[in-house]
């Protein structure tokens, strides 16, 4: 049964079938088959099997959803290029009013206003609020518009260093609207935008704070926007929204629930 020559003959039959034999070996095998009908019959069976494979086991067409996800990955980066300088389109009275209030926050922070609230808002939140305000004013709150997290995730994966875990909260009333890249400490971070009626909430995922401090997720107000910050074992989160305080709290609760390790699988 372990006759090396018989083994070798079968390997060569297969190699001949696959066009992997050189001319000299092919010739030799042909002669062997002429002399050995059993070998020739085995070759015909292999041929028949391979013909059946070619006919019945064909390459499948990748589903459209997958093709879209892959196309998104390779899509040319237009305005989504992670750049620390954003060029918002300023227009309209509302824009001016918001711009003024954003500037006011900047001024207040610049003036070194010290208070407990100030220390609580230190870190990325203030920057993300003005980011959110500017993106809203520009009418482009996200750079990739999709309610499909399989589209948003690869788009973000190609552009940021934190791998976004996108949770599906549509059933809780917060469908995914799109994704964006925020620049925090000169590093691009994934920014997930969810919708609730006409309001938006942008969740930025950041590396956990170096000191390991956990934040509890209480809603605070920065320049008229509601902001919640929290963290889990892996990441820190900042949610900025124009929703009312209670709705944002509900959103945060739903998001945290969905991101719990036990329920991470569906978020892939």
């Amino acid at each position, binding site marked *: *049964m*372990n*006759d090396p020559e*018989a*083994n070798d*003959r*079968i*390997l060569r*039959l*297969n*190699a001949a079938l*696959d066009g*992997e034999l050189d001319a000299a070996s092919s010739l030799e095998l042909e002669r062997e088959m002429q002399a050995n009908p*059993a*070998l020739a*019959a*085995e070759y*015909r*069976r*292999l041929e*028949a*099997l*391979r*013909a*059946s*494979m*070619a006919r*019945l*086991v*064909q*390459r*499948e*067409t*990748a*589903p459209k*959803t*997958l*093709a879209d*996800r*892959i*196309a998104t*990955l*390779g*899509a*040319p*980066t237009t305005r989504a290029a*992670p750049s620390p300088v954003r060029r918002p389109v300023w227009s309209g009275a509302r824009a001016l009013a918001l711009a003024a209030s954003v500037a006011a926050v900047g001024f207040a922070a610049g003036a070194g206003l010290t208070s407990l609230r100030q220390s609580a808002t230190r870190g990325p939140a203030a920057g993300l609020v003005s980011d959110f305000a500017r993106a809203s004013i520009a009418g482009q709150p996200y750079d990739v518009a999709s309610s499909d997290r*399989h589209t948003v995730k*690869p788009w973000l*994966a*190609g*552009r*940021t*260093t934190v*791998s976004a875990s996108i949770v599906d909260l549509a059933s809780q009333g917060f469908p995914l609207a799109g994704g964006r890249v925020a620049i925090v400490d000169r590093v*691009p971070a994934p920014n997930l935008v969810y919708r609730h009626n006409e309001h938006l909430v942008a969740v930025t995922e950041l590396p956990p704070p170096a000191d390991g401090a956990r934040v509890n997720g209480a809603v605070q107000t920065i320049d008229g926007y509601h902001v919640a910050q929290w963290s889990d074992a892996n990441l820190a989160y900042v949610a900025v929204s124009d929703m009312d305080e209670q709705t944002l709290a509900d959103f945060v609760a739903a998001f945290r629930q969905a991101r719990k390790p036990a329920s991470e699988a569906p978020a*892939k």
Partner: protein
Amino acid sequence: MSDLVVGTIAQRRFRDIVPPLLDDAYTLAKWICRNGADAEDIVQEAAIRALKALETTTIDRPRPWFLTIVRNAAISWMAKNRPKDLSYAGDAPDLDAIDPRLGEAAPDPEQALIAFEDGERLRRAIAGLPSPLLETLIMRDVNGLSYRDIAEATGAPMGTVMSRLARARASLMKTLKAEP
């Protein structure tokens, strides 16, 4: 994941290379993990790896290159999520396990040929192959990779690839013949 943000050159290379190979990639992943939805995730993961690699690499032969990434992504996905279905254990007797009596035992070549006509049975028989035989067969007969490419993709010596292929085909013929 990786710590780089891909640039436009990588994305251009990616657009040239990956979309034309998507059907091949999906088919290979689906055969290895035996599930369409999982295959989509695997191919996406492979595409992300490919995109990141293209940042620093130019590719001479895209097909074996990308299918190798897909194969490796599929194997690690299986090892992580369904290790029981990944039958790589007991792979040692690769080289001496071909049954040379196989052809001689065939009662009626015609009957064997008829068995091959049933696509569902054929696919079931393929799905029943141990992982190393299955991936080698699919890469060869469905993806059309050369022996050398398969050897590189699976990290197996050429002789092992040849043996696995012969065993895979012998096993299919045996299964199809044995079933009524």
